[in-house]
């Protein structure tokens, strides 16, 4: 029998990765807004993602819907355990999402919508990081129902991962802007990028040291023989890509800083998956224990296997149509 749960976890994991990368750089643009004062330059930054942001955010909805379909137990327990951060995150996303439209409609209140875009992006990113941290820490369940407290998610660790995700998204956004802009905006981003890279490296390092220190199981997973040999390339590659990205910035390459940051994201994500596997509700519920009835997983899988390749195709098409660099004075439809 085919292991449907395994296929679904691959799909959801890939969906979340795509989300982190795509919405990462467009949330990052909001985080980087305060570093650029000029109104027209801010327009340029926003217009690099205006045609694609809402497709990017759809990957997050897919992550949620995929869990709902294939692992309803995860959807119900994790979401009620992380009640406040998730609700506040979607509210932050409201402010930032409408800013795309409202900013161009407003006259006097344009500055206000800049702030909505900035704080919406920062808060949404931060809370995604908090959610990540709280998830790694584990969620208390009894017979499939969340039995922890309403503030279990709040810890120094989760606040720190929150900060980490803000920096991560800012770095992605910075790489994206180097690729998509020219002139002053690009210069500015070239100057910011190394600082962000180093901050990111420090944060990755801290999380990687802290997590196994606190979680016995995760330490076991990483440091026992023979796993340590399989997994040891992960930190080595992180160092390598950080150095490469810094060098690429120095040489003023346009595309590679973004690509190396992307590689870092994928590595960090791999580390995250290694730490959790095969649990889906840490610390103890596995993907098979949380699985939906087979008929649900199969029905949804048919749609996913047919539609996801088509989605990837037209998403790529859309990025191709808007492949040019964005410059001051380029027109939207507004």
């Amino acid at each position, binding site marked *: 029998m085919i292991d449907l749960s395994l296929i679904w976890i691959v799909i959801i994991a890939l969906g979340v990765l795509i989300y982190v990368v795509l919405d990462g750089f467009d949330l990052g643009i909001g985080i980087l807004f305060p570093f650029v004062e000029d109104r027209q330059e801010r327009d340029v930054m926003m217009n690099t993602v205006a045609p694609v942001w809402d497709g990017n955010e759809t990957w997050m909805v897919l992550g949620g819907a995929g869990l709902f379909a294939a692992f309803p137990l995860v959807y119900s327990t994790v979401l009620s355990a992380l009640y406040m951060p998730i609700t506040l995150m979607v*509210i932050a996303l409201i402010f930032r999402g409408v800013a795309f439209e409202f900013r161009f409609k407003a006259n006097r209140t344009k500055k206000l919508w800049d702030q909505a875009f900035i704080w919406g992006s920062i808060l949404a990113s931060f809370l995604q990081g908090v959610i990540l941290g709280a998830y790694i820490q584990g969620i208390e369940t009894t017979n499939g129902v969340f039995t922890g407290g309403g503030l279990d998610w709040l810890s120094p660790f989760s606040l720190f991962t929150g900060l980490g995700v803000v920096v991560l998204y800012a770095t992605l956004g910075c790489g994206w802007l180097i690729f998509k802009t020219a002139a002053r905006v690009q210069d500015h981003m070239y100057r910011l990028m190394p600082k962000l890279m180093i901050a990111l490296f420090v944060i990755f390092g801290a999380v990687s040291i802290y997590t196994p220190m606190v979680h016995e199981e995760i330490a076991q997973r990483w440091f026992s023989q023979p796993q340590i040999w399989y997994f040891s390339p992960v930190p080595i590659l992180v160092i390598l890509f950080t150095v490469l990205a810094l060098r690429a910035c120095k040489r003023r390459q346009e595309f590679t800083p973004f690509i190396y940051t992307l590689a870092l994201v994928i590595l960090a994500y791999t580390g995250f998956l290694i730490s959790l596997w095969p649990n889906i509700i840490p610390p103890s519920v596995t993907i098979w224990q949380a699985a939906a009835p087979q008929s649900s997983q199969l029905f*949804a899988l048919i749609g996913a296997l047919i539609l996801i390749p088509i989605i990837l195709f037209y998403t790529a098409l859309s990025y191709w149509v808007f492949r040019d660099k964005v410059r001051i004075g380029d027109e939207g439809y507004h």
Partner: protein
Amino acid sequence: MDLGLTALELARIQFAFTVSFHIIFPAISIGLASFLAVLEWRWLKTNDPIYRDLFKFWVKIFALSFGMGVVSGVVMSYQFGTNWSEFSRIAGSVTGPLLTYEVLSAFFLEAGFLGIMLFGWGRVGPKTHFFATLMVAIGTCISMFWILSSNSWMQTPQGFTFENGIIVPTDWFAIVFNPSFQYRLAHMALAAFLVSGLLVAATAAWHLLKGRRDALVKKSFSMAMWMILALAPLQMFVGDLHGLNTLEHQPAKLAAIEGHWETNKDHGMPLYLFGIPDMEAEETKYAIGIPNLGSLIMTHTMDGEVKGLKEFAPEDRPNSTIVFWSFRIMVGMGVLMILLALFGLWLRKKGTFYDSKWLHKFALYMGPSGFIALLAGWFTTEVGRQPWIIYGVMRTKDALSPVSAEQVGLTLIIFVVVYCIVFGIGIFYMLKMMHKGPEFIYSIPHSDGEVIRASKRPMSTIDNDQQLDAPANEHQRNVPQSDEPKSNEENTK
């Protein structure tokens, strides 16, 4: 911050509040996306720039509404887990896959082509652009298909068994095409088209009242009024079929809608036009009704028997006071829509369609009627489903997350404040754009032999025309239209 209410009550208020706000935007998007596809198709077909200008105008309102629909929709897609986790745990096996299909087949399609639709002019050819618009329009309809299938399944569930207290789907065809689905889908689709039709008509009417008589305004008004004429009566017909379906599958809901307490054994059931159903006293007070009309509508015979609310245990009854009135508001709006359409048709025949202040005022005031009817209708069907979340299978009170009233109360307050500010402002921008009205960018103001606007600037119509026509020229296809066109023009240089 429990506001003196239980977590269950607060969660229900929160769901009602967020979904009511949300539904407004998809309803506009569904209707306008198809309208835009029609406009662009007409433009490609006839090359008449009027259609292109109308497209340029309505696409802005569409984009605003779509953006608000997306962000308020993300809230919905997570609320099942945050507030209603027991529902998700037990019924996620059915509603989860349906939502996944909606995301995969609709959300991505809309979002993927929206960029090209909004920003793609000049980057892709007109045909490709039309294709993008069409995909967005189709996406909105596919989205409606899945979400209504899911909602209808909660109203008329079938195709599943229970295993270890979890719902296990056994027949997906039966689940997707459950007994009330086709009626609900048709009813909602027509409602969305009517919402937009009334919105377009009211906008045009506003400009007609202000004295504009140019082709852009007249075309909008005419197209919208034809659509209302075609769809409003059809909606009444579909609504009747939907009602009969409800009688068959959810008799308690229907009895509550009619304020009908005692089963009528030996006489016809009246249709109450007025009344205040009292849940405690188990009667409809101050009732004014038309004898036998209830039976006639419900059973298509003069004294057909219809089950009364007293046949159901008190804990299984939906709140008749609410649904009695929400239903009447919806039907009342529908009747007014039909009257508007017929009045318009009559004046069209008479030749005063574009000059009757009465018609234009009527159309203007009817602008929000689509939304009112839509919300009233949803309140009827959702409140009427209570006390069940899945009709006859799972009670709403058993669906709640293990969260405290404080948490739900706090987020409810945040939602109310944020929605009122953010969407209030969004709606204000929409009204502002409608107030400004469609502009001549590619077309010239004096088609149809009228020069109302141009005559206000008597200097030279020709100069004006050339200026206005210029953007059709390849070099300047991107016309600056933002709030500060001046600075934009400087930039392009």
